[in-house]
């Protein structure tokens, strides 16, 4: 009987999530009257604005991931190694983007970095792109920090650091050759989540007026019928592709560190 209810819950959950997706996918295939076709997809993919905005968002995602790794891996490592007492505070700070809406962040940015401020980042496209990247990194912070911190928890950071130091290694060598390779799977997980967030993000890009994929999806959704559904399916496929990549990458991870016998 318990098995029955367990299966019932699983089936209900699957229907709850899958039915709307199926409905949307089916709708996206109905652009040609009376038959299923990929016309909506072809139209979306052929749209030069799709290519431009998608390429822009992919570039921003890569920049955000690099910035996030450079910022978060050393920070999480140092907190674990030397400032364990600060961990609750750091965790609290990294959770803030979940409770502070993106619109608050972007208005803060605009107020702080407008053309008449001490650092007029919004005065140029490059400056605004940098600002947008910082914003994306902030939004991805809870996921990236947690992923890296969980990775660091699986290794004996202190002893590995001391072992490397006793062999003559400095901080950069330790981070690049010992710590990063051992938390690479965690970093990749964080990176794929960051990628998924950046690809779909609307608020920051729209208010900073950058040609990103999120605002393009919104624009299309407001003006077309079938293409937005096709675009949503593509966006889902990208997100799920990222999730699948996390699984694939984790298979190539170095095994758990040496265990005491």
């Amino acid at each position: 009987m318990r098995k029955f209810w367990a299966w019932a819950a699983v089936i209900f959950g699957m229907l709850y999530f899958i039915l709307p997706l199926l409905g949307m996918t089916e709708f996206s295939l109905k652009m040609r009257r009376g038959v299923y076709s990929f016309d909506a997809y072809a139209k979306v993919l052929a749209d030069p604005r799709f290519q431009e905005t998608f390429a822009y968002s992919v570039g921003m995602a890569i920049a955000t991931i690099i910035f996030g790794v450079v910022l978060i891996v050393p920070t999480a490592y140092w907190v674990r190694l030397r400032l364990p007492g600060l961990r609750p505070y750091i965790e609290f700070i990294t959770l803030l983007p979940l409770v502070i809406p993106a619109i608050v962040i972007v208005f803060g940015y605009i107020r702080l970095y407008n053309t008449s401020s001490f650092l007029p980042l919004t005065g140029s496209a490059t400056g605004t792109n940098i600002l947008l990247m910082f914003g994306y990194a902030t939004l991805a912070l809870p996921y990236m920090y947690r992923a890296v911190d969980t990775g660091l928890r699986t290794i004996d950071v202190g002893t590995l650091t001391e072992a490397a130091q006793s062999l003559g290694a400095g901080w950069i060598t330790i981070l690049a050759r010992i710590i990063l390779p051992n938390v690479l799977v965690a970093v990749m997980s964080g990176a794929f989540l960051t990628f998924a967030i950046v690809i779909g993000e609307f608020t920051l890009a729209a208010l900073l007026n950058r040609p990103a994929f999120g605002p393009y999806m919104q624009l299309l959704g407001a003006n077309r019928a079938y293409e937005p559904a096709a675009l949503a399916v593509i966006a889902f496929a990208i997100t799920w592709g990222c999730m699948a990549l996390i699984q694939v990458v984790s298979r190539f991870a170095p095994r758990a560190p040496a265990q005491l016998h």
Partner: protein
Amino acid sequence: MSEPFLSIQHVRKSFGATTVVQDFNLDVDKGEFISFLGPSGCGKTTMLRIVAGFEQPSAGRIVVGGKDMTSLKPNQRNIGMVFQAYALFPNMTVAQNIGFGLRVAGRPRAEIDARVAEMLALIKLGEFGARYPYQLSGGQQQRVALARALAPKPRLLLLDEPLSALDAKVRVSLRDEIRAIQRELGITTIFVTHDQEEAMSMSDRIVVMNAGRADQVGAPFEVYNRPATRFVAGFVGTLNVLDAVVKDPASGAVEIGGVPVALARSLGSVKAGETVSLALRPETISMTHEAARSISIPCTITAVNFLGSVIRISADTGGNSLSFDTFNNPAAPPPTPGDRTTVHFSPADLLVLQA
């Protein structure tokens, strides 16, 4: 007198209000194998970490080869270290682990390869170079950790309880192996352990530590047979402590449970009628009377523990309890609890304990 290779001078270490190492002094000759022995929390690992550079002393100096190393960072000291938890890099193969220090030092590839092969042969794991740490047993991992520490030819080797995580058999074989390698390379080594058997079987000298101080520094034979303090006597080996009433301090005459005993030394400032603590190792007590064992005390057997080749017997002398060993003899079964017997020992084996 030649200059010591390693000189630890007046080192003190405090964490906040707690002092964990107090005025620690030690001179170590080149090629010596020294053990820091003591219970948990006695400061032995902290002292080792100060030598390694992982902790800065609150006061004092560390001098290696005539050079003051106190303010140098750990990666500038050229000191090899082996950790209890192995600390092999999980993302690297055995060969890469061993060659890590040489790669960091920027040595040529050919030199690294040759040195790695040499180290693998030294630890008898020549075929294991391509394996990852998780593919090795605990003992093998610790041998790789030893090879990794030795590969860059450090001036000093520090071993922080390297055998504690291993099972008993591997521990014994690996300690012999470590000692053989240390002798072969002639590298000055400091070994931290809380296991007295390990310390005594491996070391040239033992530093017995208690509450952040070195209570005694000496060869294993000396530390075991002539403990400098009551703590050393109690910590190194098993000890029977007997209360004795002083009769004549000048001649060393005392009484143990009513039996008069003439000690081999005078009792200095102790007054007649006072009680002193005397110590006796279990192996110096026998149930068999011999001429050399001139003191005989009647007792009642309270417990008999069969340990295989040795039987440890506990007895009550009517005021003092004694523990002593006898070899297993299949032809003569050991006594049973409740039996009355007499134990014999020599006054020369009685140690007068200092506070």
